[in-house]
């Protein structure tokens, strides 16, 4: 069920067997990765000049949605859902941009830390409301999405503000080798460090536990309410990272969020996170975001209407959920 359980099992097993088990457990993510690799080859085939520029562009384009997808994955694994991620991104985006305009680089560091804390607080408010009111999380977070969106418009009426140069440089261009985009390193560092720490903590265990079976988790001594608030707070933190990545990549704040919320749900589903909770990780959704973005780029290369990519995304989403349910029925899981 969890990483801890996995390490105990693998310790005594044969290496090949352990590898096979690991592959089986991550079959979906590995399949996605293979599909992404195939899509890259296909892209190179239809556009032979696709190379460094394309990879750099892909990395910086997917950064906001990839972080939003990880945010959504965390709360979905815990058995909830957050429909306010897009609005939290917009709010943290405009707060960062309006505070950084015309200020020093040092002050911008304070702003970044403050905005990340703000994200934690926004998420914790969502989580506390879900736990205290016992209103379904889908309703609470939908309502809160309007509250956070309204707050964003109070901070900035129209797109504006600014960004510290170091923040922009943090995600723009390559690092060392021209093939390694800074945006990808930032993504790997943020997700890798936080996700690694969470998975190894008691909280990470309770996250999966309450997602799998709330009652069983409660009877095993997990404080369900606290774990839930923690999950939403962590989602808020990643939404703030996503909002900051918007500030960094555009250099401004935009109070109107894009379609990040529903796209993050789509990425989570495609990424192998069960909407029933308790299963999945952060890696699958990120690969799913990469695939969706590269599909759009291919539409441009093929001179197809990019709106078709959006349709394709919806169809793939329905297909994945149907196939996933079929597998679950086959395995005899509820």
């Amino acid at each position: 069920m969890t990483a801890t359980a996995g390490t105990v099992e693998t310790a005594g097993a044969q290496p090949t067997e352990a590898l096979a088990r690991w592959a089986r457990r991550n079959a979906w993510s590995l399949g996605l990765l293979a599909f992404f690799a195939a899509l890259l080859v296909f892209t190179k085939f239809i556009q032979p000049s696709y190379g460094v520029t394309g990879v750099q562009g892909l990395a910086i384009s997917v950064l906001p949605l990839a972080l939003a997808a990880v945010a959504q994955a965390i709360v979905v694994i815990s058995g909830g859902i957050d429909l306010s991620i897009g609005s939290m991104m917009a709010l943290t985006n405009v707060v960062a941009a309006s505070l950084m305009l015309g200020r020093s680089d040092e002050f911008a560091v304070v702003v970044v830390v403050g905005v990340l804390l703000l994200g934690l607080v926004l998420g914790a408010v969502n989580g506390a409301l879900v736990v205290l009111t016992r209103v379904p999380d889908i309703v609470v977070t939908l309502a809160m999405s309007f509250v956070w969106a309204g707050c964003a418009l109070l901070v900035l009426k129209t797109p504006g503000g600014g960004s510290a140069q170091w923040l922009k440089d943090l995600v723009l261009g390559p690092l060392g080798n021209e093939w390694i985009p800074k945006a990808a390193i930032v993504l790997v560092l943020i997700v890798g460090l936080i996700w690694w720490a969470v998975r190894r903590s008691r909280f990470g265990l309770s996250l999966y536990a309450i997602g799998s079976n709330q009652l069983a988790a409660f009877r095993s001594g997990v404080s369900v309410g606290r774990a839930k608030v923690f999950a939403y707070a962590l989602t808020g933190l990643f939404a703030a990272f996503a909002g900051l990545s918007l500030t960094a990549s555009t250099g401004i704040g935009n109070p109107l969020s894009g379609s990040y919320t529903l796209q993050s749900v789509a990425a989570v589903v495609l990424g192998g996170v069960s909407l029933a909770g308790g299963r999945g990780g952060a890696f699958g959704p990120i690969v799913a975001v990469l695939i969706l973005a590269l599909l759009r780029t291919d539409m441009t290369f093929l001179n197809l209407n990019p709106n078709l990519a959006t349709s394709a995304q919806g169809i793939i989403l329905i297909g994945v959920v149907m196939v996933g349910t079929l597998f679950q029925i086959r395995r005899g899981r509820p």
Partner: protein
Amino acid sequence: MIKGSTRRLLVGLAAVAVLASACSTGATTAPATAAPATAAPATAAPATVAPPTTYKIGYSNAGGVGNGFREEQVCTAKAEALASGQVSELTVIHQNGTAAEQLQQIRDLIAKGVDAIVFNPNDAAALNPALTEAKTAGIVTVSVDAYVTDPDTYNLYNNQVEYAKLGAKWLFEQMGGTGTVYYMRGYAGHPADNDRHKGFLEVLAQYPNIKVVPNNDGVATQWDPAITTTLINDFLSSGQYETIQGIWTSGMDSIVVDAIKAANKPFVPIVGADLGAFVKQLLDPVGYPGLVGAAVTNTAAVGGAGVGLALKLLNGETVTTDPTASQPNTVLLKPVVAENVTDQGKALLKSWQVDGLDPNWPLGLQIEGYTTYTPAQAVACKGPND
């Protein structure tokens, strides 16, 4: 925790939402297919300087999909790419999005290896990183309809200060330099509205006997038909209409004329834009007896002109820029005014009308020096690879 059925509903909802948004935008991208199929002869001018015919151009429009002004921009871009005979491929990304999403559109076009990128910017500064990358890749960039602050990008848009000045000057002269004007502005805070306000006040300062109601800041129609209708009906029913001698509108003109007609009041001189419906009213003395007015051009052919400008830059031709503009490398398009008082004015208004044009599209389908297509080609909305 929510039940499985609710979750399934949510996934369904998410899928339907993305599908619906895609389908709705997809459907509105083709308004011109209903137009008469008078397909103009393709590639008409091969005999000039024998320019290369191998340019690949990208076009990014990330807002107002379905809006007549934006649709006309995209269609004129396609028409110019086709008519110039120099474009082998025009890749159009016509999809609503935020500035962050338009950054991806531009980067996709860079990765595609186009020679030039023409775009309608969602923000003046946010696209600059991608525009710098385009320059590094040797790609010419042209911003149309509004400017960007990237110093290497060329900007091409309508001179909105001049737009307001032309109409206001005509109106104040028509009123004999004295009287009261109802000042109906556009969208509060929009750069074009700010520029028009500047021009209006400049001309107003030259006419000391002209008074403006409700005050010099005017009223904001937000370029919204419903808001405009409410404003003019309130103005008519409150009796204030009897105290004015002229109306200046920032577009939304035909709605104001229809409201005055419906209220059965005599017309006062009115200024508007070159939208099909208003020009039709000005040329219809039977339907609108006593209507005196003037239309100022605000062409949406900036899309086609942007492609024309990109081709000039690719061919190394010199481009005359306007040093009075706020940014370097800016081509400001000069608006033109035409009234229905003189025969000359009426003839000009008639010459603007285009058969088969969507009534929500602005007239003025061509821009001298930058577009080479025929009106029929713009209406047909076909590019070199369509």
